[in-house]
C-alpha cells in the first residue's frame, strides 16, 4: 500500500496523496490517477477542484477529477509545496493558502490558478502545515479570518486570511501539525503538534501556547473531531476530549495524516488508509 500524507474531499469524492501518487478513495481502496508532480506532498481542494503540491515545485490543479492538470503560477517560489488549505469561505472568497519549503507562504485568491508570496511577518520560510479557524459568527465584530501556519520556527497566526502573520508566543520548535477547535470562536483552543517537543495547546485563540505534559512526546498527525481530538505519535493513536488529557487508543496503528469526515476519521500512513468509524 502507498504512503499517504494528505487527504482532500471534493464534493463526495475523497482523495489521498503521497509521494507515490494521487489516489481516489473507493471504499477503503485506492485508485491511482495520473499525477502532475514527481513526488506529491499534499493535496487540497476549493470544494470543486483538486489541487496537489510537491516536487519538483509548485502546485497543479485539475477541474476534471484528475484527467487533466494545469500548473499554477508560483510567483518565483522554487521550493516544493508542502501543504494546501482552503479558506472555509472559499466558495465566495476563492482564497487558498499554500506552504512551501524555503519560499514561505503563498496566497491565491483565484482558487489556485496563481499564487503570490504572502510572507509578511514570517521569520521562517519552511511552512509544514496550515490550519484555518472556522468562520466567525455573523454577529461578531470584527469578522477576523484567522488562520495558523506551522513552521520550523513555531506557529504563526494571521487574523486576516493570510495577508500578514505574527508569531505565536511560547512554542519554539518545528511544528508539524496545527488543529483548531470547532468552537474556536468561543473556546479559543488551538493545538500544535511537534516532532520532538510533543503537543502544545493554546486557549487564547492561538496567541500563546503551553506544553501539554500529559500528551505523547511526538506528534505526527492531529485533528479535531466531533467529540474532541485525535492524534498520532510514531506508535499509536491517542484520544482526548479537551486537548489536555490524552489516552492511547487500543490496537491502533500510527498515522501520518488524520482527516475528520461525517463517516469518521480517515487515517493515512505508511500502510495506506483506513477509516476509524465514529
Amino acid at each position, binding site marked *: 500500500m502507498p504512503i499517504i500524507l494528505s487527504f482532500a474531499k471534493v464534493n463526495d469524492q475523497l482523495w489521498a496523496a503521497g509521494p507515490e501518487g494521487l489516489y481516489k478513495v473507493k471504499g477503503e481502496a485506492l485508485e491511482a490517477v495520473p499525477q502532475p508532480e514527481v513526488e506529491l506532498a499534499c493535496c487540497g481542494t476549493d470544494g470543486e477542484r483538486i489541487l496537489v503540491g510537491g516536487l519538483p515545485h509548485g502546485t497543479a490543479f485539475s477541474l476534471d477529477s484528475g484527467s487533466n492538470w494545469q500548473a499554477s503560477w508560483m*510567483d*518565483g*517560489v*522554487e521550493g516544493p509545496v508542502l501543504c494546501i488549505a482552503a479558506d472555509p469561505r472559499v466558495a465566495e472568497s476563492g482564497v487558498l493558502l499554500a506552504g512551501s519549503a*524555503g*519560499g*514561505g507562504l503563498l496566497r491565491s485568491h483565484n482558487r489556485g490558478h496563481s499564487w503570490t*508570496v*504572502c*510572507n*509578511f*511577518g*514570517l*521569520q521562517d*520560510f519552511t511552512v509544514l502545515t496550515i490550519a484555518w479557524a472556522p468562520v466567525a459568527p455573523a454577529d461578531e*465584530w*470584527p*469578522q*477576523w479570518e484567522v488562520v495558523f501556519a506551522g513552521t520550523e520556527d513555531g506557529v504563526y497566526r494571521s*487574523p*486576516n486570511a493570510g*495577508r*500578514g*502573520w*505574527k508569531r505565536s508566543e511560547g512554542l519554539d520548535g518545528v511544528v508539524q501539525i496545527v488543529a483548531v477547535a470547532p468552537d474556536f470562536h468561543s473556546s479559543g483552543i488551538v493545538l500544535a503538534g511537534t516532532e520532538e517537543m510533543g503537543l502544545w495547546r493554546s486557549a*487564547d*485563540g492561538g*496567541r500563546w501556547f503551553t506544553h501539554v505534559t500529559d500528551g505523547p512526546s511526538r506528534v505526527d498527525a492531529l485533528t479535531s473531531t466531533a467529540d474532541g481530538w485525535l492524534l498520532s505519535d510514531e506508535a499509536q493513536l491517542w484520544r482526548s476530549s479537551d486537548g489536555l488529557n490524552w489516552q492511547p487508543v487500543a490496537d491502533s496503528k500510527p498515522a501520518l495524516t488524520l482527516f475528520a469526515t461525517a463517516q469518521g476519521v480517515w487515517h493515512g500512513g505508511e500502510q495506506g488508509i483506513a477509516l476509524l468509524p465514529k
Partner: protein
Amino acid sequence: MNRPRVVNQPTTHRDILMGMNLIADLLAPTLGPNGGTVASGPTAGGRAELLDDASTIARRIISLGNPQTDIGAMVMRSLIWRVGQRAGDGGATAAVIARRLYVEGMRLGTAGYNTVRMARGIEQGVKVVSESLRKLARPITGETDLAAVARTITKDEALSAVIGEMSFLLGPDAPVVIEKYVAPYLQRRYIAGAHFGAEIRSMYFYTQPEQRRAVLTAPAIALCEERLTETAQVLPLMEAAINVGAKGLVIVAQDVSGAALGLLVSNQQAPAEKKKLSLLAVKIKPVGDELRWAFTDLALLTGATILGPNHMRKGATALPQDVGRTQRVEFATKGVVVVAHDSKRADIREEIARLRQLLIDTPLDDEDRPKYARRLGTLTGGVGELKIGAHAKEDRAIREAQAERAFKVLSAAQRGGVVPGGGAALYHCVPDLLAAAEAERDDNVAAGMRVLATAISAPLEQILINAGVTAPKVEMQYIRDGGPTTTYDVFSGKVADAATCGVLDVTDVVSQMLSIAASGAMMALSTDAIVYHRKPKQSLQPD
C-alpha cells in the same frame, strides 16, 4: 496712540470663562461615538471643512473676533493642541475637563479658598488619578482590542477593524503609509521585507517582463556605494556570488552603466544551460542621509559589506565574504524589496531595540520620527500601506486624519494598555481621589482634589448627554455600581463590561490628556489680570 488696556478681577475670570465656554461648547458635542462633526469655514475654495478632531478644530480657530473671549479660547486652543500632539487623541475630553476645573476652581476661589493651594491639590490629584488608571489598565490582548480602541476614534467599524489588524501585525511603532484612494473603499497591503526606491538598469533583468517584475530566490547581494562602469568592477562580484554557492546575484549600486552593465546583460541573456547566475542590477534612488541609511540597513539585513571608495574595498577588489545572502529579492515598478535570510540575528535585534527606544523617546510631532519608523519597518520586516477611499473629498480627508490619529493612539495602547472607555475610567478613579482628599490635612489642597474629582466625571456625563441618555446621573450610578471594568455602551444603550463591548481608552492617552488639561486650567485659574493689546499677535501654530 495704541495703548494696551488692563483688566483685573473679577473681569479677568469672566473673560477667560467666556472664551473657555465657547471652545468647550464647540467640542463637547463631538465626544463619544454619537458625537457629530464641526464645520469650519468657509475655506479658500468657499467650502466648509468638516472636522471631528479636536486638535485640528482648535488649530483652525485663530481668533473669535472678540479680544475678551480670545484669551480663554487661546488657553483652550493651546492645551487641546498639546493633547493632540503628545497623546494623539483626547482633545475634546481635555476641553470638557479643563472647563469644569476652571468653573469649580473659580467658584471655590470666590468662596474664599486659596487658588494657589487648590492648584497644588489638583496637581496632586492628577498623580492619584494616574496611579488609579495604572491599576485599572489591562494589556492589549490582540487585534480585537486594538480595533475597539480605533473605533472610539474613527467611529467607523470597517476602518477600525483594518487599523486594529494593521497595528497588531506591524507592532507598536507601526510603519504605515496612509494614502487617499479615489474608490470608496479601503485597501490594505503588507509589503514584506526592506523596501527601497530603485531603478532597474536594464529590461533584460526582468524575470516576468510582462509584469515588469524581477524575482530572484535566495540570491547573493552586493552593495556598492559607487558607480559601476567597468567590467573589472562587476566581475569580482559575480565570482564572489558563485563562490558562495548562490544561483543569483543582485547588485545594488549608485549606478550601473557602460561596459559593466553590458557584461551583466550579456550574462543574463546567456542560454539557460550556460548561465551560472541570474542577475539583477538596480540603481538605488535615495540620496544623502537616506542613501547612507539604505546601505547601512541593507548591509545589516544581508550581512554584505558596503563596497566603494569610502569603504575598505571597492567592487573591483571584492572578496567572497563581501556579498551577502537574502531569502528573496523582488523588483517592481517603485523599487526593490529585499527579504532577509536571517532577520533574527543579534545585531539586527540590537538595532531594532535601539530604534524602538528612540521612537519611545521622540515626541509624536518630531520631524525625525517618520525616519526612525521607516528604518524600523525596514529592519523588522516590512511596512503596511493603507489606502482610504470615500465618496467625497472631505470625507476622505476626515478618514485619513482619523486613521493617522488612530495609529498614534494604538501605539500608546500597545505600550501602556487600555482602560474602560467612554470616560468611565476617569469616573472610576473618583473614589480614590476623594479618599486622598479625605486624608489631606490642608483644606485648600483637599478642595483642589475635590474639584478634580468633579471635573473628571464631566466627560462621561457629556458622552451620556450626547448619546441622548435622559438621566445621565442615574446611568453614572449604575456604572459605579457595576465595578471598575464597566462603562456605558452607546451602541447597545446599556451599562456593560468595557472589554466585552469593546469600549476602551488608552491608559497613556487618558493620563497625558488629564495632565495637560489640569495644567491649562491651573494656569487660567492663577491668572489675575489681562493685558489687552490693541493689535494682538495671531499665530497659526498654537504655542
